[in-house]
């Protein structure tokens, strides 16, 4: 019962904030509503007993990615974005809304018509941290050291790539 109430609260927060995020014309408000959506999704993970995942979501998304966005908005938008009212064409709004609605109906119908067999034996306890750690850096079957290492290299490449792309180019003499 408590789980259901929490799920409803999280669902309302997520959907409402997402709607406000894509409809508000001010970019700074969109970033703030994105933060609320990310917190709601972290709550969903906690509800599913994936506490590690919820903590990672809050630390990386809410703590890191949103800060990057706010930083970029402040950096880019001194003249163009702050207090900008974005004009969206009515026809494009119409087309986007229709496409999204059609997709939503089709996907929801498919998901609801498919019979999923719930595994009723799920214990209502969180996934233990030592199990996650062993699976994350183990090299056996169903263990994930290869994607872990790949992510490390990938992040390094992205840091270098971001620095190279964003640095100021020197003026040619």
């Amino acid at each position, binding site marked *: 019962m408590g789980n259901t109430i929490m799920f409803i609260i999280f669902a309302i927060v997520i959907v409402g904030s997402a709607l406000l995020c894509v409809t508000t014309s001010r970019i700074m408000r969109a970033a703030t509503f994105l933060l609320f959506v990310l917190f709601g999704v972290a709550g969903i993970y906690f509800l599913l007993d994936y506490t590690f995942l919820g903590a990672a979501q809050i630390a990386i998304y809410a703590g890191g*990615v949103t800060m990057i966005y706010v930083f970029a908005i402040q950096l880019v938008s001194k003249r163009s974005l702050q207090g900008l009212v974005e004009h969206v064409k009515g026809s494009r709004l119409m087309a986007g809304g229709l496409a999204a609605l059609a997709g939503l109906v089709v996907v929801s119908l498919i998901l609801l018509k498919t019979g999923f067999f719930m595994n009723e034996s799920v214990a209502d306890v969180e996934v233990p941290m030592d199990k996650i750690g062993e699976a994350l850096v183990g090299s056996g079957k169903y263990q994930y050291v290869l994607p872990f290492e790949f992510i490390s290299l990938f992040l390094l490449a992205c840091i270098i790539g971001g620095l190279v792309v964003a640095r100021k180019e020197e003026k040619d003499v």
Partner: protein
Amino acid sequence: MIPVECYFVLSALLFFIGVFGFVTRRNLIAMLISVELILNAVDINFAAINRLLYPHGMEGMFMTLFVIGVAAAESAVAIAIIINVYRHFKSDTVESITNLKG
């Protein structure tokens, strides 16, 4: 216990709100924020399927974890590109970037 269909409907809603934002917004940062919404919808699906349908495996959970990592890297590089585009074109809407237009 919450039926798994509730999670699916929630993530489908979030996904198509993100699609709507991606189609309608013309600002590069706003489009990037919409992409983040879409990625979060996918993450909810992975976690819910893993936990409620196959609780003895951990594939969906690690998929979600790696998607979170890749999304952080992706947004960092995208922000770098957007800042560069802004320096070049003095604007950050997609209409201003017409170099590759045939």
